């Protein structure tokens, strides 16, 4: 390594003349630099210094020795040590070879400025005024998150997707330098990393203009039922954020419940307020889940963190179906007591996670409750100070309540009111006996309760359909829907058992195999939105150009996925035992007949 030679005290003239209040850093150029190079160097350093916020420039209150270096390893553009900066000589050569008027959009100009600002950021970070890389708030925003189990932070940063420069993930110090470089040079920084831009603005007492940002926060919904493009969420249209808790049941994987967040987004044109609570079709559920590409959820893989943990954005209707109708679990929606700026910060943070985060799932150390806590913690300093960390979804709700972070006054006192306004979604089986009572009264069926009724063969249940009046037919619709879901669950169980016991597949799976691979590939894309923008320049939150590509790709993939799902369902059906298949199709036929019956009954009586 080339030693730092004695440096001449060449004071920057501009630096010496500006008043103290706007002090610019003073550079001492390496001795013996040819005059042309020295002039170009000074021009570069002056341009870099001119971009520094005043507080940053003031903190650089000692002369900085500067040299061009030929000894830096490949890919390294500069080094900063104790008030010394060395930059790669190629940067100077390119800088000097630029066409006459060149601004930061010129590649050589940008590269040299970026390198100089990066090293100035390191120096600033080491001053007493700086210390950004040790600021807990910066570490929250950057992704060196607090650990749930122990004091301190995790050593890894999983905000790996759509990074402007993977080098930033090496350490908090590099993160600060890379981000300050972009903050000062990239006009889109405030759009792409709004929370960090706001943090830097606050630190420096400056204001970065954000006029050109693409509107809204894009989320790609993992809607398995129908193909939809990205949903844009305008934080201004979010009435509230709820903690959404799926209650536990006796199954080991579900005992602790599941914790999610629900963005109560208002319908377009509706004024923000409590009325938005019923705009269910616009509400978005944010759910951290392990992305499992296998039917056998492996405890070992769950303990060792080999499943990705990602933030899924789901339509509320789908979540309600999944829990209350398929899993027969209740969903409790508890509004959080947040200020307007906190709601915006939370939504923005969620968008950042959605596009940038690719974490690891650990059953205990990094499950949905821990991830949701970290989201709340990292988005809102006020909640970060509440000590909410919990490793179970129930525990997190209890702590939110104890800390006064929930808006209990908004929740209706009576259970009916809670159900009517969407503060509680009851498990579907809560009504089955009541429904069967209507059937029994009207059609004089002998079975004692819903369970006994649903034990009958579908063909036996079908016999009463032609006699059913409107109320009984409506009740039967609820019961037959339950029957179809139960048959579907039994079919899944049968396939699991038969296929796992006898891995030699039944015939005709060649095409099915291909279709499956394609389906899983599409499913993977929906779980990691950044993959849609592979090969498209840009980082952080996608802006206008990326959104165009995104719109096209998502729409195509969603449509393909819906087609695949149908084709596969038909294929997989053929693998069921005749008995199981007949039972499933019998229940489906009942539902179809009921639909027809209801159409004629409800049509004539209204």
């Amino acid at each position: 390594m080339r030693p730092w030679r004695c440096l001449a005290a060449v004071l920057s003239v501009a630096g010496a003349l500006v008043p103290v209040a706007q002090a610019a850093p003073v550079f001492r150029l390496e001795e013996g630099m040819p005059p042309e190079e020295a002039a170009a160097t000074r021009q570069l350093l002056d341009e870099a210094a001119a971009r520094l916020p005043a507080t940053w420039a003031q903190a650089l209150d000692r002369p900085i020795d500067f040299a061009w270096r030929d000894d830096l390893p490949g890919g390294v553009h500069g080094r900063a040590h104790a008030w010394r900066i060395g930059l790669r000589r190629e940067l100077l050569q390119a800088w000097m070879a630029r066409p006459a008027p060149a601004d930061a959009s010129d590649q050589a100009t940008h590269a040299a400025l970026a390198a100089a600002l990066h090293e100035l950021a390191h120096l600033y970070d080491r001053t007493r005024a700086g210390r950004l890389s040790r600021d807990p708030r910066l570490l929250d925003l950057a992704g060196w998150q607090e650990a749930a189990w122990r004091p301190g932070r995790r050593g890894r940063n999983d905000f790996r997707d759509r990074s402007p420069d993977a080098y930033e993930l090496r350490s908090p110090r590099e993160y600060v330098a890379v981000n300050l470089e972009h903050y000062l040079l990239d006009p889109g920084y405030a759009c792409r990393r709004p929370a960090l831009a706001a943090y830097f603005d606050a630190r420096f007492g400056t204001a970065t203009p954000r006029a050109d940002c693409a509107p809204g926060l894009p989320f790609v919904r993992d809607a398995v039922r129908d193909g939809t493009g990205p949903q844009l969420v305008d934080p201004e249209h979010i009435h509230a954020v709820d903690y959404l808790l799926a209650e536990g049941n006796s199954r080991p994987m579900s005992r602790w419940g599941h914790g999610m967040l629900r963005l109560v987004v208002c319908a377009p044109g509706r004024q923000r307020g409590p009325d938005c609570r019923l705009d269910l079709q616009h509400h978005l559920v944010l759910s951290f889940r392990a992305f499992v590409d296998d039917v056998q959820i492996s405890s070992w893989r769950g303990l060792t963190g080999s499943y990705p943990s990602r933030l899924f954005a789901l339509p509320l209707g789908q979540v309600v179906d999944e829990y209350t109708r398929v899993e027969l679990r209740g969903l409790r929606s508890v509004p959080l007591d947040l200020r307007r700026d906190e709601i915006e910060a939370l939504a923005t943070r969620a968008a950042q996670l959605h596009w940038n985060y690719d974490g690891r799932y650990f059953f205990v150390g990094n499950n949905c409750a821990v991830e949701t806590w970290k989201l709340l913690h990292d988005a809102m300093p006020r909640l970060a100070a509440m000590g909410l960390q919990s490793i179970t979804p129930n525990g997190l709700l209890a702590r939110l309540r104890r800390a006064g972070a929930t808006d209990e006054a908004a929740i209706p006192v009576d259970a009916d009111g809670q159900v009517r306004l969407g503060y509680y979604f009851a498990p579907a089986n809560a009504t089955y006996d009541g429904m069967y009572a209507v059937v029994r009264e009207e059609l004089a069926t002998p079975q004692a309760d819903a369970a006994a009724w649903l034990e009958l063969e579908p063909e036996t249940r079908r016999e009463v359909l032609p006699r059913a009046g409107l109320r009984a037919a409506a009740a039967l619709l609820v019961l037959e829907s339950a029957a179809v879901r139960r048959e579907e669950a039994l079919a899944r169980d049968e396939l699991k058992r038969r296929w796992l016991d006898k891995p030699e597949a039944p015939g005709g799976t060649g095409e099915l195999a291909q279709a499956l691979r394609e389906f899983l590939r599409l499913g993977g894309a929906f779980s990691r939105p950044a993959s849609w923008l592979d090969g498209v320049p840009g980082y952080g939150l996608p802006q206008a150009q990326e959104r165009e590509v995104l719109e096209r790709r998502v729409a195509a993939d969603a449509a393909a996925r819906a087609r695949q799902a149908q084709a596969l369902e038909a294929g997989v059906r053929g693998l069921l035992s005749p008995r199981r298949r007949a039972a499933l199709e019998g229940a489906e036929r009942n539902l179809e007949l009921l639909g027809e019956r209801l159409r004629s009954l409800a049509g004539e009586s209204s």
Partner: protein
Amino acid sequence: MKHYLLTATLVLLGIAASHALAASFAGTSAGASSAGSSASSGSTSGDDKLVREAREDAAGFVASDGRLRSARLEAALRVMRERDPAAAQASDLALARRILAQD
């Protein structure tokens, strides 16, 4: 590979099954409903979907003589009234029947 295929299929089945379920709610034969749905995320299609998804809730409401009122039903009734001035005058029960009568 075979093992992977088999197990993966089962995951898939979970997804495909609820897909069919949605189709049944919509009152169409299994699997047919979403084939024609557009990729648009406009509010009109969202409203239609809301009403479709409230079918079971509407059935519970009609069967219980108006006793069981879920948020989904309330939301669907409100959307119907906002979209159709004639519906604004209709009773909850009449609108719930209309949901049941839909294709």
